[in-house]
């Protein structure tokens, strides 16, 4: 209950989902309440449903061909563009993070700066992955043989409620050419959906990153058993729940991984497949 009459009524934002480059509400019509540290109402973000997840996977699959075939230089520039857009709106993210999580404004500033720098770091990897992970293989015979790494396809991400871990998981999945469906827990919903606006203005093709807010307990098992998801980053899920997700994911042999904190190319390569090509040599 407001006690003081404000001089101006603010225009508040409706937090929706981010699917295929658009901001739809959940088809289920469900929302949940996000409050500030002091208990004040902040927003009613969408509580994503299984159908929303399926729609997001469809969008991600449709975007796969274009994004994975884009040049590494192009993908690198778009990831760098995300950093540029985030930098320009850093104050908004600082205030949303400190408003909706137990983070001081000073700490929120550090988090957002680091998040921006992570995008810059990942952007630079796009055209260096092959140099690190590929090989030409000296086989015994008249063949030119090389191995390159390719994106797996559609990677689902169960994010933790840390903004930096959210960024790490997404950037690691998409820099190589994967498309993604990101499941965000309620505590991170507000900055995550504002981040979707950053993506929408970063020349990122629609469907490459799709973001769903809601309950990970609900969404993660559906993602694990979805037959058109190739990889699943479950870092944001408690370890004791990993077994059940991996069991469900075995049906299409999903690549399911979780990671510690910190940025590493290992995380990028975990969602890539090595392809080896033999060319016969002769005249």
């Amino acid at each position, binding site marked *: 209950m407001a006690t003081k009459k404000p001089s101006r009524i603010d225009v508040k934002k409706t937090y929706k989902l981010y699917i295929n480059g658009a901001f739809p509400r959940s088809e289920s019509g469900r929302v949940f309440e996000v409050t500030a540290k002091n208990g004040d109402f902040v927003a009613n973000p969408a509580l994503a449903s299984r159908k929303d997840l399926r729609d997001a996977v469809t969008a991600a699959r449709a975007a796969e061909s274009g994004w994975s075939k884009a040049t590494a230089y192009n993908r690198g520039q778009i990831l760098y563009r995300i950093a540029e857009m985030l930098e320009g709106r850093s104050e908004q993210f600082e205030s949303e993070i400190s408003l909706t999580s137990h983070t001081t404004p000073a700490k929120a500033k550090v988090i957002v700066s680091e998040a921006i720098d992570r995008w810059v770091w990942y952007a630079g990897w796009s055209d260096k992955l092959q140099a690190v992970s590929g090989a030409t293989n000296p086989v015994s015979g008249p063949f030119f043989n090389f191995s390159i790494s390719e994106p797996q396809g559609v990677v689902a991400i169960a994010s933790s409620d840390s903004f930096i871990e959210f960024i790490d998981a997404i950037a690691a999945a998409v820099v190589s050419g994967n498309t993604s469906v990101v499941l965000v827990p309620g505590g991170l919903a507000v900055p995550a959906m504002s981040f979707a606006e950053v993506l929408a203005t970063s020349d990122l093709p629609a469907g490459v990153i799709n973001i769903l807010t809601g309950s990970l307990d609900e969404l993660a098992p559906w993602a694990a058993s979805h037959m058109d998801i190739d990889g699943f980053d479950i870092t944001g899920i408690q370890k004791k729940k990993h077994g059940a997700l991996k069991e469900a994911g*075995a049906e299409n042999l999903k690549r399911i991984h979780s990671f510690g904190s910190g940025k590493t190319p290992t995380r990028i390569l975990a969602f890539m497949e090595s392809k080896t090509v033999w060319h016969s040599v002769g005249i």
Partner: protein
Amino acid sequence: MTFEYAPAPESRSIVSIKPKYGHFINGSFVAGKKHFPTINPATEEILSHIALGGISDVDKAVMAAQKAYTKTWSKLSGKERGKYLYRIARILQERAREFAVLETLDNGKPIRETRDIDIPLVAAHFFYHAGWADKLDYAGLGHSPKAYGVAGQIIPWNFPLLMLAWKVAPALATGNTVVLKPAETTSLTALLFAEVCQQAELPDGVVNIVTGDGSTGSAIVNHPGVHKIAFTGSTDVGKKIARAIASTDKKATLELGGKGANIVFDDAPIDETVEGIVNGIFFNQGHVCCAGSRLIVQESVAEEIIEKLKVRMAKIRVGDPLDKNTDLGAINSKEQLVKIKELSAIGDVEGAERWSPQCNLSDKGFWFAPTIFTGVTQAHRIAQEEIFGPVLSVLTFRTPQEAMDKANNTPFGLSAGIWSEKGSRIFWASQHLKAGVIWANTFNKFDPASPFGGYKESGWGREGGKHGLAAYLKTGKETGAK
């Protein structure tokens, strides 16, 4: 007047098979409790009796492997480990003919293949990995990557000793110790390999071999002392393993099934292509996970290719695997023969057209004539399911994109072949194919330096090359990757 090949059988006197075998645990052979016969699939002659490993045998083997890991193997330098592997490679070369004959007897594959492909590749695998043992810091896996400990390895019957080499060589080079289970129908060369370990004076317990069936394999997968699973076999069993280890910290590499597309463009060199198609599907009786079992041929050359393929198929010599002229040997087991017959019958029922050359197949043993099905569509089960036999499904395409779509339209992603004289087209196709191994103007080539493994439901991880080392090393420790 027709010229016929005179029989040219390789002598089997070079091998001596014991009437009964036990397990190889902690450096010695230990007696098994129950036994089952292993037969020559070409004649159904009982060759020997193999021990059926139970939970207690597996437990002893894992304990031996753990002890060897802690007490000896992990304390040896990479340089010394490597020298053991070099020794093994050399002994395998010295005894190559013996291994080739034994493999042919137990597996049914032609001596020409065991002698010229399987066994030389086995030795090459140990020689290649021997050199890695003291160079792991340079493999791009971070500084001082660490072994897991005990690797549980379960291998199939299609390339018995070669699959052993694919598993054991990298595991030992990276500093792991091993409990290996050969396939139920093809244990003999693994047991002979145990003798090689003895001759190489490999420390006791570094390599342990427990023979048996699926229940033995399951005991290895579920043993808490095993830290890493390496499996080659069917996708169904691979999924079972993935479920079995889901709630553990065990790592796994899985090399599973495939339905390889062999794609022929209209500019392909026709005669070479026909040879490549034959090699793609009839090599090793088609018992190859990466076999080119779907021929996807451009419509404009389909008729010519199929006509020439039939002429070539009529010249495939099916018969005594020990005969040096034999091209196509025996199907490995009765069970597999039944599966091939069943799926082929489904091909008939679903409306594809079957053709085989006239073959005089022996009444004894398990045989299946080289077979092609034409008029196959993507919905046919013979276009989707792995037959694992000498049966080729032929589909056609008009545009290159259609070829890619058809090639990628299975849950598998292990191998593919591309036949074309145009370099840019080959590279374009190889970029579009979702497969771990792609052969351009060749097929079914293997090398220890070349990573092997699949996309999608063809499995997890790679074997061979620099990439294969990662499967046996904790590479993500510094990052917390799990």
